[in-house]
């Protein structure tokens, strides 16, 4: 989230699209209710199903899954056509005025530079014209046909309301009502918030779904303000934290990136991460990248990271592909190229797409290690459970370890909520049996590995044996010790660069904040964006002061919010070019002639003059991007692409199948049903229920009782057409697998008309498996396709094709 749950109270309009907060985030959704009750805010829900969020909305618009970009670009088109644009914001705070290079084009669904064989782009034309002064060329008058605004205007013009209806199935009158309400928030005194979750991410163009809404919010001037923002509701309780800390193939903590094999040394690595400002006076905060990187290396390898060895640069593995994400991992396993796999609180047999492929992949491993509080299906992938897990154990040679770990109630530490709050919690119970904390398990494994390498030598032992492991009990690091390591420490005296007499931290002391980080090895910091979370003032994540001046919703003394305890990102954009709030009733910070101050920590240097330094300090432009240069694989603007399995051919780009830049492994394309398939005529989507949390709560007797059994949800029309009765059994199958389920026939799903064709939707909830207290069931991942988003490889769980028929009940 750019904002926080408690800030939603400040909004005028909530748009829930790509999520279902009332059911999936019920206690956060209460802030929508507060905004409706206390300020007359309106709620719009756009979803293929009439969800419980929709049931309390002011306006519900149905949409076919996988067509959000057409809808959102349709909204941008509407705002441009009706002059519902917050012009001062757009001109000053976005790259609308920037001139794009000659040669950049978009035609027939493809941007310039496409290579069909590689399914990738040469992105060299996706950039600004750079002037002789080294800065990007801008046209303040917006007259240049190649300025971003005019390119955008042209790009979205195809998404007129009639085209939106044709693609999305949303009736034009509904779309226009949504558009009119959304467009009103272009006023500087109106705010709209976007609440989204997996309904946007789990598509082959998930990143661009989110970008499309972010662009709309910029056009409306709704980023950086109270009650506005792009608010990812997120899934699990520490998804945000694990991502912040870089537990992904290509990341280092704090959104630094791992080197590739084309970057042999630190100088080469830094040469593409210098981020020189693209406009005069801009902060381009990533110019501090090297401070964050070197401090991280010092945190990892301590004294072994020296200026002479590029701060142990060689100790980091170098990538040969963009990333070894979950899908690539299972693809490699499937090819027999992997031997070992660890699952720490993750149940991929249930969570990954195309379960058949996942079982085959796990079966090829030499060893699998499960660390989990619960008895997961993945741990038992080798066990026969009839149709729910149809395997022969004697044919599976994988050695499996199932290690019991503690759960939340038996562990200390911090979790990061969707609003970026790091909140500390304390253990209250003794773990069951021999269950151990994950920190203990990781430490014990590490110490054994280190001992083996110390005694026996082996492949490049240095990064292992020289790993900084400074804990009082090396076999059982305490949460506080790790939290301090993440916060960072001065290794030598750190002084203010502007005033060397001013000491920021004495040697050995915890760092006050990331501003104290240095690139000479005098500081160590595990994750720069968290710095300040546990400093000499104490554990700021454990703060419990509920003070909230003027009921503004910031709660700045509750826990710690990254970065720098800032509660609203880009909050400089809440004020105009003179530094006055666009809306005085919605003040976040303001300029007093000398400095910025207000309710929140300013997201800018406090002395940066408002008419000189732009609010988007992480971008070298200083402004936000409507056109995102070459930073995304599938285009500098979003464009409508159909899901890989689609009930219709793409109306705006008939020759393009799926997202043209999405990676598809050999063999998987053959497992996709063709567009407008007769064999698989129905558009399926997966979803979650309010009574369950993923695959965990089926282990809880209460939840297993209130939602005991797998079902699929279909419309009355489809039920009538196929002779399916309410509560009767059905078989649902895709090109990859088949499930048997009870049919829930509802009015919540209605057929849509897309491109002149009736499209029926089949809803498939997620929560069942073959362990736990609920009845055994299949879940959607027997059916889902093995393809991910072009940029970050989140699988396309939300839009695929199936067929359905009445069936006899399961034998078991």
């Amino acid at each position: 989230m750019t904002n926080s749950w408690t800030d939603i109270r400040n909004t005028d309009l909530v748009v829930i699209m790509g999520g279902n907060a009332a059911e999936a985030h019920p206690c956060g959704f209460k802030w929508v209710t507060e905004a409706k009750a206390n300020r007359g805010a309106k709620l719009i829900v756009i979803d293929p199903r009439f969800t419980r969020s929709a049931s309390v909305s002011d306006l519900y618009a149905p949409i076919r899954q996988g067509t959000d970009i057409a809808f959102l670009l349709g909204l941008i088109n509407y705002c441009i056509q009706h002059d519902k644009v917050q012009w001062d914001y757009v001109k000053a705070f976005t790259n609308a005025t920037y001139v794009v290079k000659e040669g950049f084009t978009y035609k027939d669904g493809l941007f310039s530079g496409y290579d069909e064989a590689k399914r990738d782009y040469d992105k060299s034309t996706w950039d600004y014209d750079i002037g002789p002064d080294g800065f990007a060329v801008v046209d303040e008058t917006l007259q240049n046909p190649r300025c971003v605004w005019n390119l955008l205007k042209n790009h979205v013009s195809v998404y007129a309301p009639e085209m939106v209806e044709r693609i999305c199935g949303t009736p034009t009158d509904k779309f226009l009502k949504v558009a009119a309400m959304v467009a009103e928030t272009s006023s500087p005194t109106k705010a709209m918030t976007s609440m989204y979750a997996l309904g946007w991410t789990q598509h082959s163009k998930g990143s661009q779904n989110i970008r499309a809404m972010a662009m709309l919010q910029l056009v409306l001037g709704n980023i950086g303000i109270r009650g506005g923002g792009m608010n990812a509701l997120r899934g699990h309780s520490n998804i945000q934290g694990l991502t912040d800390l870089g537990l992904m193939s290509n990341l280092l903590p704090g959104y630094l990136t791992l080197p590739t094999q084309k970057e042999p040394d630190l100088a080469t690595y830094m040469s593409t991460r210098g981020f020189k400002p693209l406009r005069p006076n801009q902060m381009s905060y990533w110019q501090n990248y090297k401070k964050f990187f070197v401090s991280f290396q010092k945190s990892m390898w301590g004294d072994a990271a020296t200026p002479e060895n590029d701060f142990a640069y060689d100790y980091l593995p170098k990538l040969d592909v963009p990333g070894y994400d979950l899908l690539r991992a299972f693809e490699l396993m499937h090819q027999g190229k992997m031997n070992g796999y660890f699952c720490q609180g993750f149940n991929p047999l249930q969570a990954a797409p195309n379960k058949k492929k996942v079982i085959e992949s796990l079966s090829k491993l030499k060893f699998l290690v499960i660390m989990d509080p619960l008895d997961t299906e993945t741990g038992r992938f080798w066990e026969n459970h009839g149709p729910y897990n149809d395997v022969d154990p004697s044919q599976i040679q994988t050695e499996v370890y199932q290690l019991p770990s503690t759960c939340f109630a038996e562990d200390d530490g911090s979790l990061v909520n969707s609003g970026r709050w790091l909140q500390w919690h304390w253990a209250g119970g003794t773990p069951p049996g021999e269950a151990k904390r994950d920190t203990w398990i990781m430490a014990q494994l590490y110490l054994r590995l280190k001992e083996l390498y110390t005694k026996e030598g082996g492949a490049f032992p240095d990064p292992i044996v020289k790993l900084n492991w400074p804990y009082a009990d090396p076999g059982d690091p305490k949460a506080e010790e790790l939290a301090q390591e993440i916060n960072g420490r001065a290794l030598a005296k750190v002084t203010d660069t502007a005033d060397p007499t001013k000491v920021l931290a004495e040697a050995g002391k915890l760092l006050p904040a990331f501003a104290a980080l240095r690139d000479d090895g005098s500081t160590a910091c595990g994750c720069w964006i968290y710095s300040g979370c546990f400093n000499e003032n104490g554990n700021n994540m454990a703060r419990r002061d509920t003070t909230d001046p003027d009921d503004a919703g910031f709660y700045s003394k509750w826990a710690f919010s990254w970065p720098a305890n800032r509660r609203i990102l880009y909050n400089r954009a809440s004020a105009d070019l003179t530094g006055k709030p666009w809306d005085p009733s919605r003040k976040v910070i303001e300029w007093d002639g000398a400095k910025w101050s207000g309710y929140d920590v300013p997201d800018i240097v406090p002395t940066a003059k408002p008419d000189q330094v732009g609010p988007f300090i992480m971008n070298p432009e200083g402004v936000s991007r409507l056109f995102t240069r070459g930073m995304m694989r599938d285009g500098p603007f979003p464009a409508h692409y159909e899901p890989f399995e689609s009930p219709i051919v793409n109306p705006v780009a008939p020759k393009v199948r799926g997202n043209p830049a999405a990676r598809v492994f050999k063999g998987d394309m053959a497992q996709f049903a063709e567009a407008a398939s007769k064999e698989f005529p129905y558009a399926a989507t997966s979803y979650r229920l309010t009574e369950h949390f993923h695959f965990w709560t089926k282990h809880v007797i209460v939840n297993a009782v209130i939602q005991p059994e797998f079902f699929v949800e279909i419309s009355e029309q489809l039920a009538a057409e196929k002779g399916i009765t309410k509560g009767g059994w059905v078989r649902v199958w895709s090109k990859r697998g088949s499930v048997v389920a009870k049919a829930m026939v509802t009015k919540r799903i209605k057929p849509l008309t897309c491109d002149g064709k009736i499209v029926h939707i089949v809803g498939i909830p997620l929560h069942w498996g073959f362990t736990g207290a609920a009845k055994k069931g299949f879940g959607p991942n027997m059916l889902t396709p093995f393809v991910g988003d072009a940029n970050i490889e989140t699988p396309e769980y939300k839009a695929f094709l199936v067929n359905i028929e009445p069936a006899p009940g399961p034998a078991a």
Partner: protein
Amino acid sequence: MNVELSRRAFLQTTGAGLAGTTLGALGFAEIEAAHAAAIRSFKLANTTETRNTCPYCSVACGIILYSKGDLRKGEQADITHIEGDTDHPTNRGTLCPKGSALLGFVKSPTRLQHPMVRKPGSDKFEPISWEDALGRIARLMKDDRDKNFVARNNDGATVNRWISTGFLAASASTNETAFATYKVVRSAGMLVFDNQARV
């Protein structure tokens, strides 16, 4: 912690105050004693309260764990009740159908209790000690790493990567667990490394 202490003290004193004054002043001393004996004491009064957050979704509602026994005194602590934290700014004491049943997660019959191993081709898990399990896993890791570690690529560039073993990290473990995990996984040169944010 002041808030919880004062609230508990408040509950205890108000109970005693009512019995000692109102009824006593009216001359019903025996009835008062019988009545007091009949009232079950507030069942959370003798429990230890611990602040925590719900592990399910990322709203991160504040919760209070009530346990018999106090971990901080070195005692065994058995969690007997979980409820919403009324002081928490986000949820203000409320919980959803999942959070309301959290005690059932802590006490689930399918919580793992002991390390187990399933041998190749076997159709069952068998108990194994932590010592043996960890020793064996470390050995499997080292053997695989030594055999498949790539120090240089075909162009002779130093790459120091290990891709034949992978690690899928969690989604609800703490930042502190995450950082410890990061250190161990990355220092080994692993690249097949992901967490649930991806899916």
